[in-house]
């Protein structure tokens, strides 16, 4: 009593006042936008589509399976499947999305789309300066705005991207091994009855793979 608690409190404030001129601990302001906080690796803001290589349309990993659309809790993803096919990240010919829209004003950054995607095609971005002048059109990100390269993915989430690349490389290796085995088996089958048939069946060439 007798004012001692008040005096202690005022000393504490004085310590913070003087300390703010001396140590960064006691002056934690970051003067945005001139300074920015260091980017934390695992942070997430909104999804983006990963593409391998230089061409965002040819290298897009998304095969339009629409699993993320179904699992998204606020239903902010809108996908329209294409009719034709193109090779995906491991080389199999698959559909691709003709339309892929994410309404960023509805998205709640829950990351469930990333979790359920079997093709490592959609990942979380860290971009948060997404201001737009148009509330509806400006915040509806289409396929082109959503597509960012694998190099970008490595820059923002290096550990995760490295793991994904390793997994994809493994899959591609398996795929290649399977195709070579299939080609060898077909060649063997074609070579065996060469005496029976006059013309040898020419084995079909393996499909070209899109390498990163």
């Amino acid at each position, binding site marked *: *009593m007798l004012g001692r608690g008040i005096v202690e409190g*005022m000393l504490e404030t*004085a310590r913070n006042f003087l300390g703010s001129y001396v140590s960064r601990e006691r002056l934690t302001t970051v003067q945005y936008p001139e300074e920015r906080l260091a980017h934390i690796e695992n942070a997430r803001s909104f999804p983006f589509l990963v593409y391998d290589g230089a061409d965002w349309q040819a290298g897009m990993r998304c095969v339009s399976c629409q699993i993320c659309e179904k699992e998204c809790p606020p239903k902010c993803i809108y996908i329209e499947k294409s009719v034709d096919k193109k090779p995906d990240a491991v080389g199999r010919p698959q559909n691709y999305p003709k339309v892929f829209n994410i309404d960023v004003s509805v998205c709640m950054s829950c990351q469930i789309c990333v979790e359920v995607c079997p093709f490592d095609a959609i990942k979380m971005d860290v971009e948060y300066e997404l201001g737009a002048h148009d509330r509806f059109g400006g915040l509806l990100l289409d396929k082109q705005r959503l597509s960012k390269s694998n190099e970008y993915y490595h820059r923002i989430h290096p550990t995760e991207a490295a793991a994904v690349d390793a997994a994809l490389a493994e899959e591609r290796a398996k795929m290649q091994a399977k195709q070579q085995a299939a080609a060898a088996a077909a060649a063997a089958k074609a070579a065996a009855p060469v005496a029976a048939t006059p013309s040898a069946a020419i084995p079909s060439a393996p499909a070209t793979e899109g390498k990163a």
Partner: protein
Amino acid sequence: MTRAVAVDQMFVTLNHALVAYVPAVWRPLASAVLGVVTVMVVFLTLFALTVLLERKGLGRMQNRYGPNRVGPWGILQPVADGIKAIIKEDVVPQSADHAVHFLAPVLIVVAAFLNYAVIPVGRGMALTDLNAGVLFFFAISSMVELGVFMAGWASRSKYSLFGAMRAIAQMISYEVPMLLAATATVMVAGTLSTTRIVEMQATYTGQIPHWFVLTPWGFTGFCLFMVAATAESNRSPFDLPEGESEIVAGYFIEYSGFKFALFFIGEYLGMMATSAMAITLFLGGWSAPLACLQWFPTWGWFFVKLVALLCGFIWMRGTLPRLRMDQLMNFSWKFLLPMTLVNLVATGLWRFLPVGWERWLICGALVVVPYALLGRSINWQGRKVAVRRYRYAE
């Protein structure tokens, strides 16, 4: 030495020089007008600086910068605030009493400015040298309470009425300890004239000045006066009338635009005026703290002390939560008032006891013992308040 005196008296000489251009019969009026204009300009600038100082000071106490965008170190922030206040729409409630609603902030600001008439800012630099300067000061500061109540009543809103009631009760209750604390100085000085009081404190024994704050009764009186002054200007921890988090600005809730700014000007000017009076009564007015520092101009010392007291106000605001209404009243009537009465006794004894360590001991004990007793027995609304120990479950 003459150089220092020249600097010290430069405003007085400037005044004489400018007034010489006016025909003789108008000279007193011109001199007074010049003085008034100077006081207004100086204290309004000081107000702007205080606002900035407060925001930056509070910011630093809270581990952040204050405003620093508008000019280097935010210097132009008060200008920006002023422009904002002026260009805002002036919304007056339809059912409000328009005349009174308009006059309330005007009255507060006028009363606040009138206070500065008797403050000696430097040697020979008081606007008027009234024989009853202290009395004039306290009479004028009571006008502010009238303005506050006018504001609350005329707004015709529940929240503002609340705030006005609380403000009036608080301000009237704290006038009494403030006056009694000042009376101690008047007793010793034997005069109500502010210039005489400062001149009495401007003498030195060796290096130590004869400031009244350096005596037991003066120190107590100063502390009591400052606490009462905080309550008079509705500053934290006594800012319940403008209890921001409950009734959202209390008695000036229905004001917007420039009138809102006028309330703030009134509050800060009141704060500065009571600080100035405290400096005059207890801290030796314009005199230097050590005899060897007298080369610094006297008006400079006055402003240094004023800024120091303002920093004290800001420090208290940044640290302390606010008191509740009944606790406020209890504090004033059951603690401050008895302490000021005890202080009067101590002052009287000091005057009549012979000079030496005995009078220090007696007066010191006379002040400290009631403080301890009153402080311990203070109970807020009949309940004891104490630090507690907690047990843990087994």
